[in-house]
C-alpha cells in the first residue's frame, strides 16, 4: 500500500496569490494513498526541504509529490532532498502548480480545484513509480576539436594543458583561421600574427596535442564519453615526413595565377602551395583541381625539384577512426561576398572589397606588403569609403542579425588607412555604432577625434563607377536626410558575418541543433552557452554566433573547462529515464516482435538488435535493445512500437494511463 506525502508550495505569491494552498493541502489528504499533506511558503528553502525529509522518516513515506514550480527548475533540488532522507530519488515527482495553473489563471475556486487535480494526477503517477538507478558509462579521455582557428587552438591548448589528449582537426592546409589573415586587432592595434603565430607553434609542439590539418570529420558515432570519430585526411600528395618545408616546389610550380584563398583572391599562388609563410605545419599541398599534372598528365616540376623526393602523386585520402570522449566545435564563420549587393555593383567593381580583403591589403604579409594600393590599378587610394552593416540588420536583402564585429573593425580599418595615408580621406557610413566592450568605445572615438575619420550616419544607396572612380551615393540622416555623394577610390563593405559553408551538414552529422542562419545552437542562451543539446559536444567561437577575438577566446576556454570537467571523472552518471524493451524472464516471450520500426524512428541511433539464442546456439528471435548510453529518453520509439514493448523508465505507458484515468 502506497504511503505518499504531498507538499504544496506557495512559491511566495506566485502560487499563493491565486491558489488557496491550505485548501489544496487539506483536500489532498483525502486522496487514496496520501498519508500526509501540508503547505508551506517556500518549499525549496532549507526549512521547506527539512519539512519533506522529516515527514519521510516520521510517516514512513513510499513516495513524494511536491506541488510547486516547473520540474525544470527544482526537480533536482527535491530529488536530492528525498535521497538524503533515504528514499530513492525517482520516487519523488513534481506537480507544476505555477506555470500550469497559478500563472495562467486568475484567483478563483476553479483555479484551486485545478491545482488539486494536478496533484491528484501526480499522486497516481507516483503510485506506479519504481526506484531507478543512474546509468554509469565509461569516459574516453581524448577530445576532438573541429576547426583550427583561434577558437579551436585555444580550446585544444587548454584541454592539452589539463593533461588530456586532444586531436585538432582543420580542413585547410594550415591552422590559424581567419585571425591569421587579420592585419592588426582592435582595440589595441597589436599585430594579429604576432599574437597568434606563437600559439600556433605551441599547438604544433604540445605533447598532448595531435594536429590533423587538411582533414575533415567524415562520420561520428557513439555518445558522450564514447564517441567514435572517422576523420578523412585529405591527400596532400606529399610525404610529410620527408618534406622539410624548403618551399622550392612552390616557387618552381609553373601555375602562378590561381587566386590565393589566404589573400582573399587579391594575390596569386601556384598549384602546389603553402597558404602563408607562417603556416603550421609548413608543408605544401597540391591543389589537384588546378595542377597541370592532374589536368593534362604532364608537368611534375615539383617532383623534379624536390630535394628530398617527398612528392607523392599517387597518394590517396586516408580514413582514421578515433575513440573520442568529447568534442569542441570551432568551425568559425565566413563573410558575405560583395557580389551579393546589386546596388553596389554585384561584385563587378574590383575596388569594392569586403572587410577581410581590406585586412589583407593592410597586412604586412599581404599581397601589397601592407602598402595601401587598390586592387584595380595599384594606385594609392586618396579617398576611402567604409560601409558598415552591409547585409547585416537588413531584413529585406541580407540577414536580420547584427554581425557584431563590423563597427569595431571598420573603425580599425579607417584608422589603419589614416595611419598609412595621413592626407587621405576616410568616410564611414553607419546605422548605429555598437562598440560595447572594454576600451571599445574609446577606440571608435579615437578614430573620429584623433585620426579624423568622417562618420556619416546613413545608408549607401548606390555605388557606381565613373571615370575610374567610384561614386558613392548615400544620405546623411543626422543632417535631415541630405543626399551625400562621395567620389572614392576604394570602397570597403563591412559585409555580414555568416555561418561557415557546410555548417548545416556538419550539424546534422553531429546531431546538434542550429538556428535558421545555420549557426550552431547553444543549449541555453544564458546558462549553457558553450553546451549543445547533444551531451559531450561543446561550442567555441563564431560557429555559434558572430564573435570577436576576446569573446571567442573566452568561450573556447569555457568549452575546454567543460571538457576537462567531463574528463575529471572515470565514469559518467546519466539520468535513468531511458527507453527499455520489455524483456520477460525468458526473453523469448518479450512482446517485441523484432519489426525494428523503433530503430528507424530513433533520432539518436540508440536501438540495437539483440539475438536471442537457444542452448544449442540456434537463433530463436531477434529483439530490439536500447543502448542506455545513447538513449536521450525522447519516447519516439515508444510511440512507434506496435506491440507496446518499449517503455521509458519513469514515464511508462502504465503511469501515463494511470494519470489520465484519475481525471
Amino acid at each position: 500500500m502506497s504511503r505518499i506525502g504531498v507538499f504544496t508550495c506557495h512559491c511566495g505569491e506566485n502560487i499563493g496569490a491565486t491558489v488557496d494552498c491550505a485548501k489544496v493541502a487539506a483536500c489532498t489528504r483525502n486522496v487514496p494513498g496520501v498519508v500526509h499533506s501540508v503547505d508551506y511558503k517556500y518549499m525549496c528553502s532549507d526549512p521547506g526541504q527539512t519539512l519533506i525529509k522529516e515527514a519521510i522518516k516520521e510517516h514512513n513515506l513510499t513516495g513524494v509529490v511536491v506541488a510547486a514550480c516547473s520540474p525544470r527548475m527544482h526537480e533536482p533540488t527535491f530529488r536530492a532532498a528525498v535521497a538524503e532522507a533515504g528514499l530513492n530519488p525517482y520516487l519523488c515527482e513534481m506537480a507544476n502548480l505555477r506555470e500550469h495553473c497559478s500563472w495562467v489563471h486568475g484567483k478563483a475556486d476553479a483555479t484551486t480545484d485545478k491545482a488539486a487535480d494536478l496533484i491528484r494526477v501526480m499522486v497516481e503517477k507516483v503510485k506506479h513509480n519504481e526506484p531507478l538507478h543512474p546509468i554509469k558509462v565509461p569516459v574516453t579521455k581524448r577530445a576532438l576539436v573541429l576547426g583550427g582557428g583561434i577558437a579551436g587552438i585555444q580550446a585544444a591548448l587548454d584541454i592539452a594543458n589539463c593533461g588530456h589528449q586532444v586531436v585538432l582537426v582543420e580542413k585547410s592546409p594550415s591552422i590559424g583561421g581567419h585571425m591569421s589573415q587579420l592585419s592588426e586587432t582592435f582595440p589595441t592595434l597589436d599585430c594579429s600574427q604576432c599574437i597568434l603565430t606563437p600559439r600556433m607553434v605551441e599547438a604544433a609542439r604540445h605533447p598532448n596535442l595531435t594536429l590533423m590539418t587538411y582533414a575533415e570529420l567524415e562520420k561520428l558515432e557513439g555518445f558522450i564519453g564514447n564517441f567514435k570519430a572517422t576523420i578523412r585526411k585529405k591527400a596532400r600528395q606529399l610525404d610529410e615526413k620527408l618534406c622539410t618545408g624548403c618551399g622550392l616546389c612552390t616557387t618552381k610550380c609553373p601555375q602562378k595565377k590561381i587566386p590565393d584563398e589566404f589573400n582573399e583572391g587579391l594575390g596569386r599562388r601556384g598549384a602546389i602551395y603553402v597558404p602563408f609563410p607562417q603556416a603550421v605545419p609548413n608543408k605544401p599541398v597540391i591543389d589537384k583541381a588546378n595542377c597541370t599534372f592532374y589536368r593534362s598528365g604532364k608537368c611534375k616540376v615539383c617532383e623534379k625539384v624536390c630535394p628530398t623526393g617527398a612528392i607523392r602523386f599517387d597518394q590517396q585520402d586516408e580514413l582514421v577512426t578515433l575513440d573520442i570522449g568529447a568534442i569542441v566545435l570551432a568551425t568559425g564563420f565566413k563573410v558575405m561576398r560583395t557580389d551579393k549587393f546589386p546596388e553596389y555593383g554585384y561584385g563587378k567593381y574590383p575596388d569594392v572589397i569586403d572587410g577581410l580583403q581590406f585586412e589583407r591589403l593592410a597586412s604586412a604579409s599581404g599581397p601589397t606588403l601592407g602598402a595601401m594600393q587598390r586592387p584595380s590599378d595599384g594606385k594609392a587610394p586618396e579617398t576611402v569609403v567604409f560601409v558598415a552593416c552591409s547585409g547585416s540588420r537588413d531584413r529585406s536583402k541580407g540577414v536580420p542579425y547584427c554581425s557584431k564585429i563590423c563597427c569595431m573593425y571598420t573603425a580599425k580599418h579607417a584608422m589603419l588607412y589614416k595611419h598609412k595615408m595621413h592626407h587621405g580621406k576616410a568616410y564611414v557610413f553607419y546605422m548605429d555604432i555598437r562598440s560595447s566592450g572594454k576600451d571599445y568605445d574609446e577606440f571608435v572615438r579615437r578614430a573620429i577625434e584623433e585620426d579624423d575619420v568622417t562618420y556619416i550616419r546613413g545608408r549607401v544607396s548606390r555605388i557606381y563607377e565613373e571615370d575610374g572612380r567610384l561614386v558613392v551615393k548615400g544620405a546623411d540622416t543626422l543632417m535631415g536626410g541630405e543626399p551625400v555623394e562621395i567620389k572614392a577610390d576604394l570602397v570597403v563593405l563591412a559585409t555580414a558575418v555568416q555561418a561557415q559553408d557546410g555548417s548545416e551538414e556538419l550539424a546534422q552529422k553531429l546531431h546538434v541543433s542550429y538556428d535558421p542562419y545555420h549557426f550552431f545552437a547553444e543549449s541555453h542562451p544564458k546558462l549553457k552557452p558553450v553546451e549543445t543539446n547533444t551531451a559531450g559536444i561543446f561550442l567555441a567561437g563564431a560557429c555559434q554566433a558572430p564573435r570577436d577575438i576576446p569573446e571567442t577566446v573566452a568561450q573556447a576556454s569555457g568549452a575546454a573547462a567543460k571538457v576537462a570537467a567531463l574528463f575529471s571523472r572515470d565514469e559518467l552518471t546519466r539520468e535513468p529515464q531511458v527507453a527499455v524493451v520489455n524483456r520477460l524472464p525468458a526473453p523469448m516471450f518479450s512482446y517485441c516482435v523484432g519489426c525494428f520500426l523503433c530503430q528507424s524512428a530513433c533520432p539518436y541511433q540508440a536501438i540495437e538488435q539483440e539475438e536471442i539464442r537457444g542452448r544449442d546456439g540456434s537463433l530463436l528471435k531477434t529483439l530490439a535493445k536500447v543502448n542506455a548510453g545513447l538513449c536521450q529518453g525522447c519516447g519516439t520509439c515508444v510511440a512507434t512500437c506496435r506491440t507496446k514493448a518499449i517503455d521509458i523508465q519513469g514515464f511508462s505507458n502504465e503511469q501515463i494511463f494511470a494519470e489520465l484515468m484519475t481525471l
Partner: protein
Amino acid sequence: MRIGYYPGCSLLGSSREFDESVRALAGALGLELVQVPDWNCCGASSAHVLDHKLSLALPARILAQAEAAGLEEILAPCAACYNRLASARDALDKDPVLAREMEKVIGRPATHKVRVVNILEVLDRFKDTLPGLLKVPFAHKVACYYGCLLVRPAKVLHFDRAEDPQSMDRLAAAAGAAPLDWNYKTECCGAAFSVTRTDLVARLSGKIVADAVRAGAEAILVACPMCQSNLDMRRTESNAYLGADHQIPVLFITQALGLALGIDANRLGLQRHMVPATFAPAAV
C-alpha cells in the same frame, strides 16, 4: 494572341507616340489589343498621396471592368499605370476584407484576379519570333533607362532585378542594338515634379542624360511616358543645368523595335519628339 489594353491618360495626351508605337508594333507582331471598356484614371501620382482608399478604388474599378469584359490579363504601357494597377491588385489580393470594401465602393463584384503586365513583359513573349521579323536592325549603342516605377517595389511587381534590370537590354539586343552598361538605369528622373519643380527635374534628368552620353550611347530607350517626357521635353532645362548641348534622342522601346521591324517612323510617332530622333554618334 489577345490581351487587354489599358492606355491611361498619358498615352492619349502627351505621349501619343507611345500609344501609336504600341499599336503599330502589336499589329506587326499579331497581338490583338482589346481596350478595357469604359476605363477610368488609375489615380496616378495624386490619388495615393491624398487618400489610400481612393488610390485602391480607382484601379479596382479598372480591374473589375477588365474582368467583366472577360479579360485575364491587361497591358498597361505607362509605368505609373502599371505600378498603380499592380499595387492595388496585390493589396486587394492580400486583404480580403479590404477587397470586399472596394467591391462596395465600386458597386460591383470583382475577384481581382486579372493580371497586370508591362510592355517589356509582353514583348519578351515575342523574343523567339522577333529576330525573324527584323528588317532594319536598330544598330545603335543604347542606354536602356527603366526608371523607378517599372521594377519597384520588387515584392509587389516580381519583375526583373530591382537594381540592375535586364529585360529591356535583352529586347534592345534582339532589335539589333548594342545595350550599354551604365549607371543610371533605375535612378529617378524627377517624375511629376516636371511641372512644379522644373529645376529639380532638370538636375535629376540631366544627370541621367549625361551618364548615358558618357557611356557612349546614341539613344536612350525608355518604357515610361513620364521618363520620356522628362528626358526629352525638359532637355532645354537639363542641358542648361549641365551647361552642355546633349542632343541624344529618347525613344520608347516600342519605337526602336518598330523601326527595326521596318514600320514607318511617322506611324511610330517619332515626329512628335522634342529632340529629333537622329542618331549621330555621341560625343564622348
